[in-house]
């Protein structure tokens, strides 16, 4: 048995020893221990070093609010977790732990020199210490700050664990499984409601687990607890332990993180490490209790100094006494019970020091009865010891006079500065808090969500009031759900009522300027820092917080906020509510990235859309590129080819003979109805009335602002049916826009829309031999130029498959696009590939498509346009139906800004030196002007053109269309490139090849 373990005490299993290591040393704890309780059982208090001053620190709490005892834990490769709270991590066999923020060792840490250089690190040190000289900013200060910042080390390997998520809908969610939460859950469940009860601890019970002497309904509190839990199960309540409610969002949506395997010796196969629950509850009951806060005095952070409630928990829940001889300094009644339990378990308590002048008579009596010295109206002014507390200096206080100090020897110092209702989740909802002058704490006020708060969260103290309040909350939730609930009552014996007070730092007879009286333990913020911040002009608590970093540690001010506020209010001479409280934000406790990521990692991280022809491309070595959410074949390299060579070959083959391209990703919309043509006239710039069935037209779509939104070829299949194609990225947007106009602006039009993007697989066949390849495969259609000219569409059969065949071209060559039902897409592709072998048909990817279209000056929406380009800017005036009275965006085409001279217009560029321009490169008119130069435009597209034997580019240039033949300049790091402004139609400008 470990030296500090008390046989017969606690909820740990004495028959189940568990071995673990801390900083390489082996220790033994018991099943049911946390790392902190097991180390304390072995007499180890020193568990870490503080962030700024590297001061030695021990566990100050026994819960998730722990600021000091942060350790690294590991379970084999990749499974390293920094900043684990030793007070939360349950012991498991073989657990390896290490302390943080120290070098070379925890007991002797070089970084502790910071503690002597206190002045450099006082409040606002970021803004002072690192100001001068300017040249030090990035060379000296930043590396220093980066090296010093952060607590634990980040893991270096990928996390092999899995993380899960789950949606859950319930009638009532109760957060906190203490006395109030349990009674609330039971009452609500018995009304017939679906109830979920969650608690962050490994077992339900809350503070009952630390108060076994209480008797409820004639039973010991632990027996009562066991009985209640079985009743909860019988009532169908879902009990979730090791589950932290991390955030409370709109309309009773809460995020819960369940720790599934961290406590297990051997995680079961397939089990996720953590599971994020997204819970939507009709009613929420917050029964999260209260958090104890420290007293602020010099040396209150020494290992061995801990919250009285924590010591009581270590004793009663883990059977660990935190020292041989304790002393207590308190301003709240609750600490007396910790002292009593310690003495009753055979421990020693040298003295109880109370900052209050008078104490309840029964507490005085019970203290005397146990032979504990009681010093009321006293202050604590120092602690002794280095790596472990050896004593506390206490002084009598009379009025504002602090009397002579006296040392009380102790190896554990239990402190209590009162309790703060845990209202973090309530604050997430923007629920307001009101200052309660009597208890000197904030209590819940106005609610914004359908929630109840019960127990210590409302400032109630003692088990009787908590149980009663829980019942009330459960009733209220049930009633709000329209259910009848029956109230229950519980009889509590030996209850532990209590009051206390919150206060600023304790008075001292020494120089307050030299005191290291900590308010925020993790961020090393002292009372002096807060006063300094106020002296330096900080008035709002939000400013004090950011200047000092008080409350900005991973515990989010759970222990420090109220103490900091008391000190700031005192320094400002204001009441605390006038100074205000900082906002609590999710998550309630530190949460792993894995829990947030859930299933969204690896193959299921990002959605990838694939076409029916994708398997062929993959099997034939295509290199892919992402295009919106699709993956598309980029190019098909042959052995030994790089991208440049592959694309050049694909371009040449297509222009010389025939190429094939998977165009399945193009958006397709069926526009049908008696008013379809009118709808098309209103949506697109082009005129549609005279387009005959069986014919196609290039369509241009604007926003109402007159800027180009999308384009595509549109075929008229019959009088009242159009097959609209959109850009790949614009498919959803265009359908959304069309539906919007139809549903809300023109509900009078008889038109229906259906997306057929994925119904059709589309293969584009381009090149002088395109018809020769296809003709043998086509049935039911005369494909001759006369019968089926450029810009035609027909329904027919291709390779025996039902098809919609378009004669269109995005390459400038004779071109066809064949649509077949997606299930036949691959078959069609293979059939064409086979038929094309006689003509050395060349499958090509998106890069070649881009080159071929650029040679023709065809624009790509989103590449050559950027949401500020009009049809005139893009040289697409011809696509505007000038006779049409109206269409989307028409009115804007005469807006002053749109008709203004010198707009950026799309032109071609040919470099004089034959070099290839960079897309995005800026263009200037005068290369000799002073810096910064005036940009006249930028390059939008740039490719090596095999057809022209030289690079070509497209660019948006101010007044570009009137600059034909002029020279512009593109300054680059290695010199300025000269380029001539040309038409964008670089290849076959007469379009002869289309008519083949």
């Amino acid at each position, binding site marked *: 048995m470990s030296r500090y373990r008390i046989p017969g005490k606690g909820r740990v299993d004495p028959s189940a020893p568990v071995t673990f290591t801390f900083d390489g040393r082996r220790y033994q704890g018991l099943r049911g221990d946390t790392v902190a309780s097991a180390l304390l059982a072995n007499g180890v208090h020193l568990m870490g070093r503080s962030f700024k001053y590297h001061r030695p620190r021990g566990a100050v709490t026994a819960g998730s609010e722990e600021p000091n005892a942060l350790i690294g834990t590991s379970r084999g490769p990749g499974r390293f977790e920094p900043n684990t709270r030793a007070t939360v991590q349950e012991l498991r066999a073989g657990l390896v732990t290490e302390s943080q923020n120290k070098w070379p060792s925890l007991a002797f840490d070089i970084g502790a020199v910071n503690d002597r250089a206190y002045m450099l690190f006082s409040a606002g040190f970021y803004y002072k210490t690192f100001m001068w000289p300017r040249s030090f900013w990035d060379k000296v200060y930043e590396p220093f700050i980066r090296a010093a910042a952060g607590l634990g080390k980040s893991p270096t390997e990928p996390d092999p664990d899995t993380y899960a998520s*789950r*949606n859950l809908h319930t009638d009532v969610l109760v957060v906190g499984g203490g006395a109030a939460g349990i009674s609330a859950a039971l009452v609500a469940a018995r009304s017939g409601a679906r109830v979920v009860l969650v608690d962050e601890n490994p077992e339900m019970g809350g503070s009952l687990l630390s108060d076994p002497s209480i008797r409820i309904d004639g039973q010991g509190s632990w027996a009562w607890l066991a009985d209640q839990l079985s009743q909860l199960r019988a009532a169908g309540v879902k009990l979730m332990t090791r589950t932290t409610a991390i955030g409370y969002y709109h309309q009773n949506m809460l995020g819960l993180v369940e720790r599934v395997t961290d406590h297990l010796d051997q995680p079961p*196969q397939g089990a996720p490490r953590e599971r994020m629950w997204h819970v939507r509850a009709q009613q929420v009951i917050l029964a999260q209790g209260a958090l104890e806060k420290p007293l602020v005095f010099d040396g209150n952070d020494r290992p061995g100094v801990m919250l009285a409630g924590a010591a009581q928990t270590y004793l009663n829940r883990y059977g660990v006494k935190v020292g041989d001889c304790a002393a207590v300094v308190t301003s709240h009644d609750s600490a007396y019970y910790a002292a009593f339990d310690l003495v009753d378990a055979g421990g020693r308590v040298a003295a109880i020091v109370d900052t209050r002048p008078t104490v309840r008579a029964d507490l005085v009596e019970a203290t005397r009865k146990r032979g504990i010295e009681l010093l009321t109206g006293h202050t604590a002014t120092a602690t002794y010891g280095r790596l472990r507390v050896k004593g506390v200096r206490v002084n009598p206080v009379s009025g504002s006079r602090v009397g002579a100090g006296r040392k009380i020897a102790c190896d554990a110092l239990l402190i209590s500065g009162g309790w703060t209702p845990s209202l973090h989740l309530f604050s997430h909802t923007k629920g307001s808090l009101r200052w309660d002058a009597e208890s000197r704490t904030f209590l819940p006020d106005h609610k914004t969500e359908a929630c109840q708060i019960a127990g210590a969260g409302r400032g109630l103290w003692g088990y009787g009031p908590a149980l009663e309040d829980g019942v009330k909350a459960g009733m209220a939730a049930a009633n709000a759900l329209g259910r009848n609930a029956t109230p229950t009552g519980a009889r509590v014996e030996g209850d532990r009522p209590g009051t206390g007070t919150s206060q600023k730092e304790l008075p001292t007879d020494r120089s307050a300027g030299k005191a290291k009286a900590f308010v925020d333990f993790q961020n090393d913020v002292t009372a002096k820092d807060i006063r300094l911040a106020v002296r330096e002009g900080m008035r709002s608590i939000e400013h004090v917080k950011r200047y000092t970093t008080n409350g900005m540690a991973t515990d989010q001010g759970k222990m420090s906020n109220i103490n900091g506020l008391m000190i700031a209010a005192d320094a400002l001479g204001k009441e605390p509510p006038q100074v205000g409280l900082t906002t609590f934000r999710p998550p309630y406790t530190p949460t792993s990235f894995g829990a947030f990521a859930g*299933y969204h990692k690896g193959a299921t991280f990002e959605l990838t859309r694939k076409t*029916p022809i994708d398997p062929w491309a993959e099997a034939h070595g295509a290199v892919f590129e992402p295009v919106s959410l699709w993956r598309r074949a980029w190019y098909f390299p042959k052995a030994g080819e790089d991208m440049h060579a592959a694309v050049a070959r694909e371009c040449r083959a297509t222009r010389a003979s025939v190429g094939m391209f998977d165009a399945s990703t193009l958006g397709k919309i069926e526009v049908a109805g008696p008013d379809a043509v009118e709808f098309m006239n209103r949506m697109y710039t082009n005129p549609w009335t005279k387009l005959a069935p069986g014919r196609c037209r290039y369509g241009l779509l604007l926003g109402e602002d007159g800027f180009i939104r999308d384009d595509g070829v549109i075929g008229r299949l019959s009088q009242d049916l159009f097959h609209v194609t959109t850009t790949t990225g614009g498919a959803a947007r265009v359908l959304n826009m069309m539906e919007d106009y139809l549903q809300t602006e023109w509900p009078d039009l008889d038109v229906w829309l259906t997306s057929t993007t*994925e*119904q059709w697989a589309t293969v584009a066949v381009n090149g002088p031999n395109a018809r020769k390849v296809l003709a043998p495969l086509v049935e039911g259609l005369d494909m001759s130029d006369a019968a089926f000219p450029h810009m035609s569409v027909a329904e027919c059969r291709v390779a025996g498959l039902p098809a919609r065949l378009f004669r269109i071209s995005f390459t400038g060559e004779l071109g066809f696009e064949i649509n077949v039902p997606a299930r036949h897409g691959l078959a069609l592709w293979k059939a064409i590939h086979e038929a094309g072998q006689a003509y050395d048909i060349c499958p090509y990817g998106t890069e070649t498509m881009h080159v071929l279209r650029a040679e023709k000056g065809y624009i790509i929406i989103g590449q050559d346009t950027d949401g500020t380009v009009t049809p005139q800017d893009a040289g697409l005036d011809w696509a505007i139906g000038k006779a049409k009275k109206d269409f989307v965006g028409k009115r804007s085409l005469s807006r002053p800004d749109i008709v203004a001279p010198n707009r950026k217009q799309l032109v071609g560029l040919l470099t004089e030196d034959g070099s290839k321009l960079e897309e995005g490169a800026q263009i200037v008119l005068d290369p000799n002007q002073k810096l910064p130069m005036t940009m006249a435009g930028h390059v939008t597209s740039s490719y090596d053109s095999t057809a022209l034997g030289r690079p070509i580019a497209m660019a948006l240039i101010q007044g570009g269309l009137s600059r034909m033949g002029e020279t512009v300049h593109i300054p680059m790091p290695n010199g300025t490139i000269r380029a001539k402004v040309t038409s964008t139609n670089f290849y076959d400008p007469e379009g002869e090849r289309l008519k083949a």
Partner: protein
Amino acid sequence: MSDVAQALGGASFTGFARVEELAPQGMISFRGDLSDPVVQEALRAATGLEMPAQRGIVQAEERALGWMSPDEAILLMPHAALGGVLVELRAALAGQHHLAVDVSDARVTFRLSGPGAREVLAKLAPVDLSPAAFAEGELRRTRVAQVAAAFWLSGAEEIALICFRSVARYVFDLLAVSAAEGGEVRAF
């Protein structure tokens, strides 16, 4: 037909629930005013099924008729029967403005089966899948992780889920991950 390619070649996975890609079935997207008795009669004639109420689906044998929105219905049938249904619809609604489109190839259907079927989906969809809230006859259109999907109970402990064909791999992988042994939650 040998040239019919399923998006995932009929992939399946068995964990604590079974996930299968079903053979392509016939699927028609119907746009029209579903409150119009003429439309309702045409749908009844073409499918043999009564147009269900808001958010509902009716199923019989291998056919189903579901409410997708006030002006959209989905018709499911064996693929071989699709052409006939389209012809019948067009005949019944001749001269009446509507749009019936074969979308059989635009979507894939997955079947989740076993006692854990609801569990699998509850990990991915933000809606209440408890038996009290999601019962037979309900057609649920919502999100599954990052994509749109629709699903309904196609039998006892069996859910049919449809999504776009291009995202079939993504959805299948997610369903399989969610159905993996060891990930059971048993929370309904």
